[in-house]
């Protein structure tokens, strides 16, 4: 099976380890992952902010770039949600009939990481080891758009030495919402305050999720308040092993959350 990684623009720019660890996990399971370099962004920001026509070249690029692969995996429920639900909308309004068909075909083969692992590859124990207290935030688009259900939790429950604790009011939005966090900064921050309160109430060192965007939001708040709790992507936890454990070093989000000696922090 030819698996292509869709890194997402955010992880490419700010969270490269999320991509590297996604590759690590899949390779450890015996799969080869390719990274088509023509990829850029799914266009969700444009669509969600009201600029659907400008998303057209991005939708076209996504469909062209990923057409040759059997499966496309992205470490983001939100971006996969955009591919599955919004690309058809953009193609219908502004694209050709050919693009509409292309988009439908690629969307059907595009998976969020936990979907690929559990549904397609049939794995829940990926051989990970993570001796930390962790709480899981099911991001809105994973939960309600993709309906990933408890797949990420199944993966986490199979991680050795993990102390997985339930997040109160887990299904509540963290307040990110893309440009919502900027346009409605006050409401967004009020939502974030409650999410952080629930995270810190668990005593977890780590809040994890399947979306770097939401984690950037929650982590940015936890860091601002010096709570000591950090955000780590699901892929980073799944990549950590006894031989190559993740080191939780001091510093910001780009320090100390790298699995294995290849870390560049």
């Amino acid at each position, binding site marked *: 099976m030819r698996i292509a990684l869709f890194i997402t623009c955010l992880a490419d720019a700010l969270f490269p380890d999320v*991509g590297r660890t996604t590759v690590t996990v899949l390779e450890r399971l015996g799969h080869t992952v390719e990274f088509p370099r023509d*990829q850029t962004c799914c266009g969700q920001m444009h669509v969600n902010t009201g600029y659907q026509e400008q998303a057209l070249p991005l939708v076209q690029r996504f469909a062209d770039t990923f057409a040759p692969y059997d499966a496309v995996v992205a470490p983001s429920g939100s971006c996969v949600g955009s591919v599955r639900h919004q690309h058809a909308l953009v193609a219908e309004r502004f694209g050709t009939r050919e693009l509409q068909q292309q988009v439908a075909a690629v969307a059907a083969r595009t998976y969020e990481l936990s979907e690929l692992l559990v549904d397609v590859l049939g794995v829940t124990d990926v051989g990970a080891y993570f001796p930390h207290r962790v709480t899981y935030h099911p991001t809105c688009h994973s939960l309600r758009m993709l309906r990933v259900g408890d797949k990420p939790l199944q993966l986490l429950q199979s991680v050795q030495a993990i102390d997985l604790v339930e997040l109160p009011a887990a299904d509540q939005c963290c307040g990110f919402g893309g440009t919502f966090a900027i346009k409605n900064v006050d409401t967004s921050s009020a939502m*974030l305050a409650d999410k952080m309160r629930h995270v810190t109430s668990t005593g977890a060192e780590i809040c994890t999720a399947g979306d770097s965007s939401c984690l950037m939001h929650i982590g940015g708040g936890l860091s601002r308040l010096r709570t000591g709790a950090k955000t780590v992507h699901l892929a980073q936890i799944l990549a950590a092993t006894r031989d190559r454990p993740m080191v939780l070093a001091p510093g910001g989000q780009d320090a100390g959350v790298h699995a294995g000696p290849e870390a560049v922090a």
Partner: protein
Amino acid sequence: MSAVDLGMPALPTSPRGTGHLRGDESFPDAARRSLTDSQLRRNLGKATSTIRAKRAAVVAELPDWEELREAGRQLKVHTMAHLPDHLVQLEEAVTARGGVVHWARDAEEANRIVVDLVRATGADEVVKVKSMATQEIALNEALEAAGIAAFETDLAELIVQLGHDKPSHILVPAIHRNRAEIREIFLREMGDVDPELSDEPAALAAAARQHLRRKFLSAKVAVSGANFAVAETGTLAVVESEGNGRMCLTLPETLITVMGIEKLVPRAQDLEVFLQLLPRSSTGERMNPYTSMWTGVTPGDGPQAFHLVLLDNGRTAVLSDAQGRDALNCIRCSACLNVCPVYERAGGHAYGSVYPGPIGAILSPQLTGIEDNASLPYASSLCGACYDVCPVKIDIPSILVHLRAEHTETYAAEHRLPSVEASAMKAAAWVMSNPTRWTLALRSGRLGRVLGRRRGVIGDVPLPVAAQWTATRDLTRPPQQTFRDWWAAEHTATPSEDEG
């Protein structure tokens, strides 16, 4: 597809200057203030979490809840597709049973019709059943201007009216008030209340009952809304909890019902679906205590004159938009408000319209025209909780996204210069539509590493957009190497990308 896209003349929206569909300020500005109201935050947090839990419990009891939702959705979609026929059928049925049907193009016309009808009876006061349609058109204000006093009889609406306040929730208009505030309002405004009144809910309800009973017995005219109208029989239905509606609908001589044209169901049998969906979604009850149904006039029983005012006020414009029209399917249960994290924190007044929360964010901008409520489609993180609980499965997040596009496209059509945001989005699309440009742009992000050297994260950045983010959140420090540069470095040793 919006009318703008098709080059069609836009259908009339709700006129400016009449009614309560537009706020005085944008959602972010209004929310900035309401978020600092500790009492409001506490009341809303408590009330919405309580009602959320009640709803979840009674919905879980029904094994066929999803089938019911789908039935409700299909009934509404079918009704909207044949609305003109059903409306004419309703008019014929109501008329045949002795009622009089009036057609109101907009809020002004509806108010004029009701004022004239009340004047014709010689009455100078009316009792009112809780009604969103009459709040939408600001009927109370129109009646007052004509020298007619309107008395709200729903307990929460009474609290709002006595407090010279605005409703902040579709079902629980006084959700932003607590019992101490209600006691204070009653003591100040009721006149005939016992000065020893406590703030026990039972005592407050008793005081309201005593206050209202005199009005029920003296009023000659009642004004109501309607939850449903059955086209085939001409039957109107109001569901409620308190029984005050029942008093208004049965005691006065004249009953005037103002109803949005979207409230129709084709057949009486269709009510079996909605009368299951509505109370469970709305109050979290298996069944609402009072369901009143009436058909025209029954000699010797109940009001002897019945007028039905059918209100458009922008609804036909909503119906003409294929992507947005499902907003008309709303049965006003308010489940979407109760689960909405934005509503729970900002409160109903921040939306500026009588229709707050997620449904308001898609309904109000469509009724008024997008530019009069341009900030509302953005008043959502698109978390999707509203869609999950909607009893008629309105895909609110998709309509929000659609209305955002309508806003930016309308703005672009009406302005010669693009907005700053539009220019930024265009630039981003230009960069992202080409991998070389994108790679270079990503590398330039490394410049941001000079920030955040001390803590490893970036604190305050006094630049537009970044400042909004860093007001409450640290910013991630860009890594030394982007993913694609790391990948390229890893895979340059071998020409094939297939080697891990």
